[in-house]
């Protein structure tokens, strides 16, 4: 870890200016990811800009019935916010499936979007990694890639975005609000994270110096039929091998609207709109779900240690959609998961 200077920003404009004024500056939210990366020498900023005093930690209802999450609201405050619990229970479940209570108390919503991959090689300077050092090679391909992706990968990088929260945000059609040297703009959630392609060093479409100020959730929260299913190596405090956010609008057993997003499988939360379209107008049956699952994984590619994820993802999709339909979590894996959030 190198030495750094620190300023506590009190206004968005000031933060953006401060960032532009330094070559190697970084914003810091809860620091739960950035500080780790600094300790491992993966990130070496020389200047940190604290965001916690920006006043962006509020959660407010919007005139159109949506909800605005301040970028600096903590993951814990967001999950347990009454409006989130009541109207966006999918988001509540997804956040609580991630990390640990201590981490969620520190971690911010903006930081959650920006957290970097947990690919082992990315974290270990002794090994080549295109994301850390472009052009050095991808060690995960042909290596220990159990945690890596199966969808939308490239021959440069097969890393995943590790967030749980973002999977629900993707499913819910969130809009990301940002502020930067060129003013403010919004980014559709599906356009925020990117696929690795030839530039795995870029996780998202944020321009240099841009700051996330908030996340806007549309009014529709799918609070009646939803499920966040996370499969991992232990029941808590582990990243998803595969996770599924499923949300349905049902009329009897008829599917009127559907959302389906996956975590742990790609460089971004994997939302499949074609699969969603396949669900709409169908009866919510195991058969339908299986067909949809097969479609989502149609072009999946395994890399050895992670090939099992293809089958696991299919089963997880079916289960999540089933749970969203039946909304009973009596006796299955989720019962164990939820007994200890």
């Amino acid at each position, binding site marked *: 870890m190198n030495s750094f200077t620190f300023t506590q920003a009190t206004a968005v404009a000031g933060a953006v200016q401060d960032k532009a004024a330094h070559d190697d500056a970084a914003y810091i939210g809860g620091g739960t990811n950035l500080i780790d990366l600094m300790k491992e020498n993966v990130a070496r900023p020389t200047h940190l800009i604290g965001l916690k005093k920006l006043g962006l930690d509020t959660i407010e209802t919007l005139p159109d019935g949506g909800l605005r999450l301040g970028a600096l609201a903590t993951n814990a405050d967001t999950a347990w916010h009454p409006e989130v619990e009541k109207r966006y229970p999918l988001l509540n479940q997804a956040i609580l499936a991630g990390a640990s209570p201590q981490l969620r108390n520190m971690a911010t919503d903006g930081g959650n979007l920006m957290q970097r991959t947990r690919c082992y090689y990315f974290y270990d300077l*002794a090994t080549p990694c295109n994301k850390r050092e472009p052009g050095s090679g991808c060690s995960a391909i042909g290596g220990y890639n159990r945690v890596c992706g199966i969808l939308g990968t490239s021959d440069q990088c097969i890393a995943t975005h590790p967030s749980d929260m973002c999977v629900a945000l993707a499913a819910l059609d969130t809009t990301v609000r940002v502020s930067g040297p060129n003013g403010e703009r919004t980014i559709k959630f599906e356009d925020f994270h990117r696929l690795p392609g030839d530039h795995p060093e870029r996780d998202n479409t944020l321009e240099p110096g841009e700051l996330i100020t908030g996340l806007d959730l549309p009014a529709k929260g799918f609070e009646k039929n939803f499920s966040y299913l996370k499969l991992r190596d232990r029941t808590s405090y582990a990243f998803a091998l595969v996770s599924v956010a499923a949300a349905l609008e049902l009329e009897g057993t008829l599917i009127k609207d559907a959302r389906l997003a996956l975590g742990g499988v790609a460089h971004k939360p994997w939302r499949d709109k074609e699969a969603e379209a396949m669900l709409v107008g169908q009866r919510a049956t195991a058969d339908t779900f299986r067909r949809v699952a097969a479609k989502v994984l149609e072009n999946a590619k395994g890399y050895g240690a992670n090939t099992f994820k293809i089958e696991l993802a299919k089963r997880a999709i*079916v289960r999540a959609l089933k749970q969203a339909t039946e909304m009973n979590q009596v006796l299955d894996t989720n019962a164990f998961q939820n007994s200890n959030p």
Partner: protein
Amino acid sequence: MSHTTDYIGKPTNRVDGPAKVAGTAKYAAEFSVPNLLYGYVVSSPIAKGKITKIDSAPVLALPGVQQVFSHENVPSLAFLDRSYKDDVAPGGSPFRPLHDAEIKYSMQPVALVVADTFELARYAASILHIEYEEAAHETELVKHIDEAFEPGRGKTGYKPPKSRGNFGKGWKQGVAHMEANYSHHAQHHNPMEMFATTVEWLGDKKLTVYDKTQGVFNSQQYISKIFGLSKDEARVISKYTGGGFGSGLRPQYQLFLAVMASLQLERSVRVSLTREQMFSFGHRPETLQHVAMATAEDGSLTGINHFAVAETSQFEDFTENVVGWTGTLYDCKNVELGYRLSKLDVFSPLDMRAPGAASGSIALEIAMDEMAYAAGLDPLEFRIRNYSDFDQAQNLPYSSKALRKCYAEGAAKFGWEKRTAEPGSMRDGKMLVGWGMGGGIWDASKMPAVVKASLDADGHLTVSSGTNEIGTGTYTIMTQIAAESMGLPIEAVTFVLGDTTLPESPLQGGSWTAASVGNSVVEACTKLGEALLKQAQKMDNPAFKDTKIDDVQFANGQLRLRSDETQAVVLRDLVQASGEPKIEAENSTVLAKLEMLKPPKYSMHAHNAVFVEVKVDPDLMTVHVTRVVNAVAAGRIINPKTARSQVLGSVVWGISSALMEESVMDHRFGRYMNHNYAEYHVPVNADIHDIDVIFVSEEDDKVNPLGIKGLGEVGLLGVAAAVTNAIYHATGKRVRDLPVTIDKLL
């Protein structure tokens, strides 16, 4: 002497609990000494090759950086291998930190940067430029089975496995058979407290060394020999250890580095390792095993074959008893055992909780389950039919063996009789239910230990010995034993440990501390009792004239006549009357040492039986260990409370081994890749459900006077196998490569 108070066998709170909870218990990296320098270790990114260049100048130019130590400037030290051997070093040539340019394994320490602050040292280490010339490395055990060799005598405690009878004949006699291969990967101890050493420079080569270790004397003799220090110059202290599990049995390299830097710079120095560096030394070795068994019509075993190949380093032959237990645990005439090592470019493996037995019992106890199915028998019934009443391996009777009780009481508590044999036949709603069992055996050992008992004029008893507290409850049980021996309330007794100025005790390991130090506490107290009686006799009290130690007892803080309890003197008054500040006595280890030279008359072992319930999601194949009953026969239990904690921890570890724990190596780099707590998975609270611990009664007057067999390790045995067997029972899937992660069940 007699026991009149009642501390032994009573659940007793940890005497060191308040200090730990309040944060006043100090660990090696927490001793603040004045003018401290901080060392940060630089680790090798390559697994084999040599260092060609170290560019220290830019680092040394940073204000506050004191020195960069590497093979280029390490002082000349002891020459012979012998000087680098610690008490439990295996055969071979011990690793010498910063010795030369050669890289022997990935993450080998290659330099130590010493600076005024920890942060500066860490930063300086991160910019230290080192160049390497890489050489091809070999780290993959399966590729080197053919080169495996039979180790010689190996390290202390290693018993080359002995075959008996004729397995080939036994195999042919059998009517049912099983044969399979088993494997598990390397595991790292990963105690919560990372390795650290704080060396206080007291001037003129005199050091006080606060070390994370399981044996202060081992650390002391190691640095004394290497650096030519006298015992007085190298005092080692370790009052608390934040978990050891065997990792602290050998001195780790931060001890060497901190002492070396302190002597060179003539300053106090602390070196602490990072979590990542906790993967840079000993580990439970990856082990590949093969088991074949055959049974006769009546389910009795006609032959067992158990063979293991384990990894070791290029420089030492680390041996453990993996297959030997197989020859003892079950009754069988034809047993063929084999154990080999293969040298790889890794650091030497190291004893890790139940070394050898934990690995061996995975294969043996899964194989027993497979054999039970092949023979059409219930796994418990099968084990009972092959119960060993006489140790055929040592050709000795057992000093005691209450394993039958473990089977009976464990099964009853678990409800085993309701089990239906067919895999997949039990359900709880949609979840598949599986019940599996296993068990194990561990040595009941005792080593010579010296204890001093000292009573002061306030009537306070201080008992001391240079043993260690690794969280097992040593402070507490020794205090209980001493209080009971001297008839004092527990508050009037203090046990002191973890300092080389105290009487010498063995390493804290092998489950022998309770028996070794515990019995010595009784002996020292007996000696003290004799001294007190002598003092009473000096005091012209006619009642004690001509009395022998057996005629008196110690109770209520008094020395009194057995025949007439009203004839009593207060212990405090005896000390006061002596005119000395205290009366003290030490036990002698002469007899204990002689005893060790004699061939044993009995086979002395602790045993256990474990019953496990898993629930498996039939679609997603997620596994939940919902119930465990672990019944243990370990002789006399001094403190059921701390003993239970030992077994609970063992069960959690067993679940961990079965389902999640493994150090994953990328063989292209010869490097463990999941070197942190986020990715080296051990269970969290949500993974652990009901655990029942039963201590079956087992009286043993042969094993040692207190009848203690030790508990640190036996509770782990059979747990991983029982979980795996339960998964088979639930799903019909037999996984033989641990851990059983979700991908292996899909």
